[in-house]
């Protein structure tokens, strides 16, 4: 996914990617990433967990505005099925 992200960014459109695999992200180096220690197949969290999905999307969108170091990986640290999203 990071390769697709890099191509879009290189074409002049800012990007942010959710990642569940930090080692890959550190290697491929997309411009902005949000890392979650979540199971594969759940980049936005659990099914029908609206507050959780919205929070993760908001975090990603905020990264577009706040990340100023290319390649930075943000880690909100949400614990799978434990964090309470408001």
């Amino acid at each position: 996914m990071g390769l697709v992200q890099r191509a879009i960014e290189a074409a002049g459109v800012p990007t942010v990617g959710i990642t569940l695999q930090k080692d890959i992200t550190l290697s491929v180096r997309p411009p902005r990433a949000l890392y979650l220690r979540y199971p594969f197949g759940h980049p936005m969290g659990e099914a029908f967990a609206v507050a959780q999905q919205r929070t993760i999307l908001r975090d990603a969108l905020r990264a577009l505005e706040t990340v100023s170091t290319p390649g930075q990986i943000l880690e909100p640290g949400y614990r799978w099925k434990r964090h309470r999203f408001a």
Partner: protein
Amino acid sequence: MALGTLGNRVAVQLFKRLPWLGDAWARRRRFVRSTSVPWTPLRRPVRECTIALVTTAGVHLRSDAPFDMTDPDGDPSVRVIPVDTPRGEVRITHKYYDHSAADRDLNVVVPIDRLRELAAAGDVGGVAPRIYSFMGHIDGAHLRTLVEHSAPDVARRLRGDGAEAVVLTPA
């Protein structure tokens, strides 16, 4: 064949339930190593931007050909999903991850409803008209196709769609 399918299903569940297994897999496998990082600054605040979604979770229209799951190097082609497509016309073809949650709620891999809610609330400027979808797990000769053709093609189409920023989601 049946045994292979079963083995794959077991592996998919193990990778889902044991995060360290995925970490170990990633350390053993070779990934593209990049030194430089491409960078395009955001031109205006997110609340004024049209946002597009791109995924590598293997999502596609039922009416489109599914991704090729028989090639061990993956399928570097792209599927396009108009954002207003009825949910019943969208499906996921991907055997390397457990998409049972995403099958029930597409927002688990493509947060289209959440993005529309943010747009309605004025927190983002708008939603780009199309979602672009890959299958991920691309390797071998297909990596070149992805990097030199599919990905730049999607980048051009995103610009044509008026996308001012993109959120990408993996499987």
